[in-house]
C-alpha cells in the first residue's frame, strides 16, 4: 500500500483532526504529512499525536483540545492526548481524567469498549465560547464551557456532567432515542443515570450513601442551588429568586407539556427526565447496594433493547422483563423495578400488547 501525503498547505488543525478519521488510509496520510512537515506545534504535542495515531483505533484513546474561547471547534488546539502527562490547564486535566474514569467504568462494569463498543476515540473540547453556560455532545465529541462566572462555573468541574455528555454518545450508539418529548426525556434521563453511576462508582458509594445530584459543582458559590437536578427528589434541586424553582416532575401526573421547539426544550426533555430519573433512584435504593450493579445492569440491558421511539411505558416494561431475565421472575430485583415504576405513575404492563 502506498501512503499518500496530504498537501502541506493543509493547516495543522485539519491534519490533527484527520488523525482521528475512521478511515485508516486517511489517518496514515495525515500522519505521514505531520511527520514530514516542519509546520508543527512543538515536539511533545506531536509525539502524543503520533503515539495516538499509531495505536489501534480501539480502547477509547483520549484527546483534549483547547478552544481558547472560540465557538468554532476546528480552531482548537490539541493540549493533551492519551500518552501525555498532566498539563497546566486544570479544565483539560479534568476532562481527560474524567474520560479515563468513565472509560474504565464502562469497561469494568458493562464490558463496553468506549462509546460505540468498538473503541471510539474520546475527544473533548474545553474553554469553548465566551462565558458559555453549557456542555454538549455534538454527535462525535464532548464540548465544555467555562460558565459566565456569575451563575455557572466551569462545566468540567462535575464528573457526572462529563459522564452525562459521554452517556449521550452511548445512547446514540445503542437505542438512538429521538431527542423529542418522551423518548428525548428518556435520553436525558439515561445520561443522568450514567452520570450518577459513574460518580457513585468513583466514590465507591452505595445507593443509600449517594447524593443523587447532577451537576452539584457547576454553580458559582454565590448561587443558592444544590445542583442542576436531583434524581432522589426531582423538583428540589434549586429554589431561588434568580431562576425560580426546579420544574422537574417526579410523577406522570405532573408530566410537563411543552412545545417541541428549541424554546420548549424539545418538549421539555430536561424537565420530564425527572420521572424516569426518580424511577432509577427508587430501583437502586429498593434493591440496595451499589447502583451500578443490578440496577445499572437492568438499565443498560434495557437501553440496548430500546429503539429510537421508545416511550416511558415501553422502557418501564423492558426493565421489568430484563430484571426477570437477569435475576429471575419474581426476584427481589424484579419486584423493586415493578414498585419503582408504579410509584412514579407508570405501572408496568406484563401482558404483551396486541402490537407486541
Amino acid at each position, binding site marked *: 500500500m502506498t501512503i499518500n501525503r496530504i498537501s502541506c498547505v493543509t493547516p495543522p488543525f485539519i491534519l490533527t483532526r484527520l488523525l482521528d478519521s475512521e478511515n485508516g488510509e486517511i489517518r496514515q496520510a495525515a500522519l505521514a504529512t505531520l511527520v514530514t512537515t516542519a509546520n508543527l506545534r512543538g515536539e511533545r504535542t506531536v509525539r502524543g499525536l503520533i503515539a495516538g495515531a499509531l495505536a489501534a483505533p480501539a480502547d477509547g484513546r483520549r484527546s483534549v483540545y483547547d478552544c481558547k474561547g472560540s*465557538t468554532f471547534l476546528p480552531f482548537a488546539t490539541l493540549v493533551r492526548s492519551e500518552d501525555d502527562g498532566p498539563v497546566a490547564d486544570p479544565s483539560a486535566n479534568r476532562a481527560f481524567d474524567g474520560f479515563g474514569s468513565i472509560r474504565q467504568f464502562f469497561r469494568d462494569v458493562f464490558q463496553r469498549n468506549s462509546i460505540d463498543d468498538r473503541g471510539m476515540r474520546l475527544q473533548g473540547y474545553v474553554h469553548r465560547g*465566551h462565558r458559555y453556560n453549557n456542555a454538549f455532545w*455534538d454527535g462525535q465529541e464532548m464540548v465544555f464551557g467555562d460558565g459566565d462566572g456569575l451563575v455557572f462555573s466551569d462545566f468540567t468541574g462535575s464528573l457526572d456532567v462529563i459522564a452525562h455528555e459521554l452517556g449521550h454518545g452511548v445512547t446514540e450508539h445503542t437505542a438512538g432515542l429521538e431527542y423529542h418529548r418522551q423518548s428525548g426525556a428518556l435520553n436525558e434521563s439515561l445520561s443522568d443515570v450514567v452520570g450518577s453511576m459513574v460518580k457513585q462508582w468513583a466514590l465507591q458509594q452505595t445507593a443509600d450513601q449517594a447524593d443523587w445530584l447532577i451537576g452539584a459543582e457547576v454553580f458559582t458559590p454565590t448561587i443558592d442551588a444544590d445542583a442542576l437536578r436531583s434524581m432522589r427528589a426531582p423538583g428540589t434541586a434549586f429554589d431561588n429568586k434568580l*431562576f425560580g424553582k426546579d420544574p422537574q416532575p417526579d410523577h406522570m401526573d405532573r408530566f410537563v407539556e411543552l412545545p417541541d421547539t428549541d424554546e420548549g426544550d424539545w418538549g421539555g426533555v430536561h424537565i420530564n427526565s425527572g420521572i424516569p430519573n426518580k424511577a432509577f433512584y427508587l430501583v437502586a435504593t429498593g434493591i440496595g447496594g451499589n447502583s451500578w450493579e443490578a440496577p445499572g445492569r437492568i438499565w443498560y440491558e434495557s437501553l440496548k433493547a430500546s429503539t429510537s421511539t421508545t416511550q416511558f411505558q415501553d422502557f418501564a416494561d423492558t426493565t421489568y422483563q430484563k430484571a426477570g431475565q437477569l435475576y429471575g421472575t419474581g426476584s427481589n430485583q424484579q419486584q423493586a423495578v415493578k414498585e419503582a415504576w408504579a410509584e412514579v405513575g407508570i405501572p408496568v404492563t406484563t401482558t404483551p400488547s396486541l402490537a407486541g
Partner: protein
Amino acid sequence: MRVSLATHGGLAAPIIRRLPPRVLDTDQLPGDAARELRRLVAAAAADPGAAGPAPHARDAMTYTITVDDSSDSTTLTSSDTGMSPAFGALLTWIERHLG
C-alpha cells in the same frame, strides 16, 4: 441600535430559560465599537450557519440575536453545532460587551 440575545436549551435548559434576556444598546458604546458591531452583524447575516442543532447533537443551545435599528429589525438564529464562524464571532462579541 439595540441588540438582544436570547438563549435556549442546553444541559441547564430549565434554568437558562428563566434567566433575564440580555440587551445591548450601542448608544452606550464608543463609536468604533458600534462600527465593529455593525460589521459583525452584516457578516453573520450573510452567513449565519444552520438554524437548528445537528441531528445527533444533545444539550446544544440555540441563539436568537435580534438587531433593532431605527429603520428595521433583523433576527438571526443559530445553534451550538450549526453556527458559522461569523455568527460565532458576533455571539462572542455580544457576550464580551454584555460584561
